[in-house]
């Protein structure tokens, strides 16, 4: 699905991301962990062609993301509030995003019904602009808008942050279900080791831009990670 080679991003004299070689296979759910400044968000931004790498390239289905834009057809993402159009109502935003994938407004509203539980009655028909929602609810809107595109590749930056416990659990089961139903490839970054090991089947550990560990999850993974981070 994704091939990263010789990827480097340098700010000033600091190398923020430095990945020699990384393959992500179709259908994998990958957890990206690492402390602040490890380069998780920068890597995501390069995957989404929001910043230009200094060297190296990222191929999505064999096409360089910086040179082609076909990846936009099957990639959905939510990194931060900068992805939301905050002066729209939640419904308008969903309809806008759906419209980009040729969904009719009726189709979008119908589709959103399945997220009623996830939304917990706090998102739809509230008569508020997105900018007036709480951070957690803005998060929900962004994640739901990404899921709605039924992507083949889903990229979420700290999706569990700001969510209440119930919604965190619901989000986990949503991601697990989608993976089984549609073979979606997912990239998630998180500081919550519990959630990451629970949802993901492969963990990539970044530190100062370098891939330190890359392994498949098993029953010992959580312990291993906790040990690493408590050093």
């Amino acid at each position, binding site marked *: 699905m994704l091939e990263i080679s010789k990827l480097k991003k340098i700010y000033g004299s600091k190398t923020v991301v430095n990945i020699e070689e990384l393959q992500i296979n179709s259908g994998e759910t990958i957890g990206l962990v690492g402390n602040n400044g490890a380069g998780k968000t920068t890597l995501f931004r390069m995957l989404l062609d*929001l910043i230009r790498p200094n060297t190296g390239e990222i191929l999505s289905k064999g096409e360089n993301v910086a040179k082609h834009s076909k990846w936009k057809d099957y990639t959905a993402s939510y990194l*931060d509030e*900068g*992805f939301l*159009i905050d002066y729209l109502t939640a419904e*308008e935003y969903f*309809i806008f995003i759906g419209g*980009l994938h040729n969904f009719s407004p009726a189709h979008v509203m119908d589709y959103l019904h399945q997220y009623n539980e996830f939304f917990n009655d706090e998102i739809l028909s509230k008569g508020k602009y997105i900018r007036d929602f709480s951070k957690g609810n803005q998060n929900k809107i962004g994640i739901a808008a990404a899921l709605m595109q039924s992507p083949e590749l889903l990229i979420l930056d700290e999706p569990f942050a700001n969510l209440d416990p119930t919604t965190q659990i619901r989000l986990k089961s949503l991601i697990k279900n989608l993976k089984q139903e549609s073979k979606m490839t997912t990239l998630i970054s998180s500081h919550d080791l519990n959630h990451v090991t629970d949802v993901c089947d492969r963990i990539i550990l970044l530190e100062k831009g370098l891939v330190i560990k890359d392994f498949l999850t098993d029953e010992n993974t959580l312990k291993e990670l906790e040990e690493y981070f408590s050093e």
Partner: protein
Amino acid sequence: MLITFLNHQWKAFWRSKNKGGSIAAQIFIGFILLYLLTVAVLVGLSLEILIEKSFPGKDVFVVFNGFILYYFAVEMIMRLQLQDLPTLSIIPYLHLKIPKQTIVNFLNARALFSAFNILPLFLFIPFCTTAIADVYGSLVALMYVVSIISLTLFNNYTALYIKRLSISNLKVVPIMLASIFTFGLLEYFQVFSIAARPNRTFNVISLHPIAALGFSVIALIVFLINSRYLRNNLYTEELSRNNEKKVSTDYPILGRFGEIGTLVALELKLILRHKRTRSSLIMCVIFVFYGFLFYKKDFLQNDNFAAMLFAAVFMTGSVISIYGQFMFGWQAAHFDGLLVNKIDFRKFIKAKFLLFTIMSTFTTLIISLYGFISWKILAVQFAAYLYNIGIGTIIVLYFATRNYRAIDLTKAATFNFQGVGASQWVLGLPYFLLPYVIFLPFFLADRPYWGLAALGAFGAIALLTREFWVTFLVNQFNKRRYNIAEGFRE
């Protein structure tokens, strides 16, 4: 405590992240302020002569007294439009061990720091200390000053009070504006002259100077009402935004343009749902009256279109230049979202063209009313219209791809130079000069109509070759989109 608060405000002003940015903008603001103050002082000093010249035969003092009232009435309208509520600045203090009264006092003191409160002093006090002191003596002059200061304070706190009330009840401001306009109309048609009344009031001051304290009492009452209201409603939620239910809207006509239409609808909502963009739009509406300044009779008789052309280009393209100069900074907050979503940049650029074309067509239709003055105006405006939708849009969008400054939409609009950078200053040159480059050769050869035709023709050619220009702009955009996105993220 009050001093500490004001000190914080002072720091907040100077340390704000996006304060003007470029030095050019700072200097420009400085010049404008200096200019306004100088004008105010000069007008103030020469008020006596000005009044004698403009109203010969009338008593200078009667006119002056009337002028005071007009000034404060107009000022009231402007304050309601422009003055900002200093509310948000108190949020960090609300939960601390500070008595409510202190915070209210701070809000009241903070409200005094407004240009509106300085201007009348510069305007009126020179006249009071010279003319009035000479004729009526220094006590009367002093009391005049007292009443002017009181009226300023009265206006200051009344405007704030009305604005605060209007947060919970939107109808207050229109009612207020309507009543002021009604008084103005009554005055204009001489049905009921209020100008005669202040004269009587101020006459009283010259006879019994102490009566001026009456103004002070009214000002004090308004001040107290305002303080009480603040004290009882000291919740930022109630003071700073209204909780009106927001509805989703849809522009079916734009739906016909497919994805491009969707993008235009998105931008229309952006314009209508933010204060800063709305006031830009109001600016455009105000500039519609520009024609009255430039469409002079002798210009029209002599076919002297050179000066008129400037006004025509400016008016037909007001949205293009006023709104367009900050592009794509308006969308800075969600620019990342636009980039990662399935939006074709070609359509993104085309949507801008469509938006400009719609807006420009709309204004051109409105200002076609100038056609009642002379058909020649229509010819000038039509040439300017073609120039704008053909070439002006391309120039503005080209500079948009070089503008890396985000616009902070949450901030108020007036005298807000946030987001102004070099590209705005450079943009004006080609945009306003190019029409003259095309027009002037013909004009100097004494063929003004040919000049207009040439200008229109160039515009039409650019319009017909739009696909080429879209490709050109998309390439420019692609070259710099990382820089744009990075600039907007800061």
